[in-house]
Every structure is written in C-alpha cells, then in structure tokens.
C-alpha cells in the first residue's frame, strides 16, 4: 500500500463518509471496513484507533487509503486545536512594525485583546482575521494591502482545516 503521497493523519482529525462515493464501489480490506463502520462524524481518528486497537502507523495507512479512494470527508479537528507558533506572531508583528513603527507590539496586543485571545494561545484559525484586523491599523490602503500580502506569505501554508 503506497501512502507516501497522502497527508499526515492527525489523531484529532474527525472524518465522515463522503456522499460522493460508496464503500461498496471499492475493494476494501477487513480493517478498512472496520474503520468505515466506526465513522460517524464525531469520533476522532485516535478514538477509532483505540476502539479497534490500531497504532498510528496503521491508522495512517488505512485512513490514507480511504481518503485516496475518495471515501472520506474531513469534518473537522476535535477540540484539540492548533496554536500559532510564537515566532510566527513575532514575524507578523515585525512586518507591522515596518508600517506603523514601534507601536506595532501594542497594536497586536490590543487587537488580540479585542478578539479575546492571548498571545500564547492564538489558534491558527484566527490568524487570517488577526492579519486583516491588524491591517486596518495602517492608514494607507496601499500599505494595508502590502502588509496583507506579506503576512499572507507567512500564514498561507498553515493547516486551517
């Protein structure tokens, strides 16, 4: 089974059966069927692994195959959320400094506070909105866009799923 090209399956991911393809259309192994029967759009990969006594490598293989066959749809991650690495926030703050000067750090804190977030625990899903919100602190529309462009370069490849 070649899953080298498939994306990593994280334990907190939640899948459901896709409406686009039925498992009957694919020749599945018994363990793959076992996983299919556990999918309900609520159980995480880790929970299914625990129920079926599968290790991470087996889960990667099985989910990777099912995804490749187009049988699964990612519902969402569980409450285990991804937090933005601190260096990334610092980079964004540095870029903002180039546009608004040393007040950038204060602006970042202010905006985070408005969003009811703390620096150390900003979830990845809030990052685009944070960048957008910070850009409004720049008066010139051209510079706003420039800031958005530069920040987007940094945040675009994060996993927002």
């Amino acid at each position, binding site marked *: 089974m070649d899953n080298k090209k498939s994306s990593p399956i994280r334990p907190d991911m939640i899948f459901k059966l896709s409406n686009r393809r039925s498992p009957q259309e694919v020749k599945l192994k018994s363990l793959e069927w076992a996983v299919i029967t556990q999918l309900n759009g609520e159980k995480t990969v880790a929970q299914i692994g625990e129920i079926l006594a599968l290790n991470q490598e087996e889960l990667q293989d099985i989910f990777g195959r099912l995804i490749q066959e187009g049988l699964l749809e990612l519902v969402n991650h569980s409450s285990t959320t991804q937090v933005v690495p601190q260096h990334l926030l610092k980079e964004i703050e540095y870029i903002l400094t180039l546009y608004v000067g040393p007040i950038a750090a204060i602006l970042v804190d202010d905006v985070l506070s408005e969003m009811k977030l703390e620096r150390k625990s900003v979830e990845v899903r809030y990052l685009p909105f944070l960048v957008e919100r910070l850009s409004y602190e720049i008066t010139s529309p051209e510079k706003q866009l420039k800031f958005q462009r530069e920040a987007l370069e940094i945040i675009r490849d994060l996993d927002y*799923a």
Partner: protein
Amino acid sequence: MIEQHFPQLVGRKGVSAVMLCDTRGGVRGYWVKPKMNNEVLGEICEQFVHVFSLANQLGYEIEELVVPFEKGLIYARPAEKFILGVVARLNLDVSLLRLIVNVHLADFLQDKKVQRMLKKWPEWSPANSSPIKLDEIEVQLIQRMTEASRG
C-alpha cells in the same frame, strides 16, 4: 487565466471553483476542481449579477457576499467590470479567503494585459439585472444582507 492570476485560490484545499463573471452574467474564466460540474457556474454568475445590480439600484454598496449553503459557501467580490466568485467548503476560513482575494485581485487589476482585456468588457448598468420589481420581503432581505455586511 484563473490559474495564472489566482494561484492561491486554485491550489487551496477546500476550494471547489473559482470564476470570473462579467457584468452581464457571462463566465469569462473559471477553474473547477476535477470532477466538479462546471455547468452550474453560468447560473451562479447570473445570480451574482442580479444581486449586485439590485443592490446598486437600491443604493447599497456590497463589498462582498458570503452565502453559506448545506455543504459549502459561495463567496463573491464585485469589481468595476466583473465579479470574482469562489465556491468552497464550509470549513474554509472566510477571513483567509478574503485575504487571498484582496492580494490576488490587486495584482490582477495591476496587470497590463488584464487592464487591456477589461477595457473590452461591459460596464455595470441597471439593464444588467432582470427588470423585475421587488416585493417588500425581497427589499427587507437585501436590507438585512447589506446591514450584516456592514457589520
């Protein structure tokens, strides 16, 4: 054209279709995910034009439109001579979508070839939308939408 000018949309997980509609509801360019039916794009463009034309007639300025549906969302951004539309899955963050569209759209409009191309495209005009009269509920609906978009 779409792949060239909107690469971060085309390659993004969760994006199913990107389309460029002219002000008459014509599809001037599009990209769709493999296996996605592209026949629906024309209808979406017509609806975009209808909504934005009506809003113009009512004097509302809608900067963007986000319409969630059962399994996804439709995002539309009007410009001087076109509407950029995106069909995406619901889990795609709208702020991220907006950010990408901001950046790509600015580059698109700066491109000399695009500027020459846009000169040939029709302007917005009241005649673009269907000559129907709105009933009270439709007017209220548009008012609510525009109020929501103004935040």
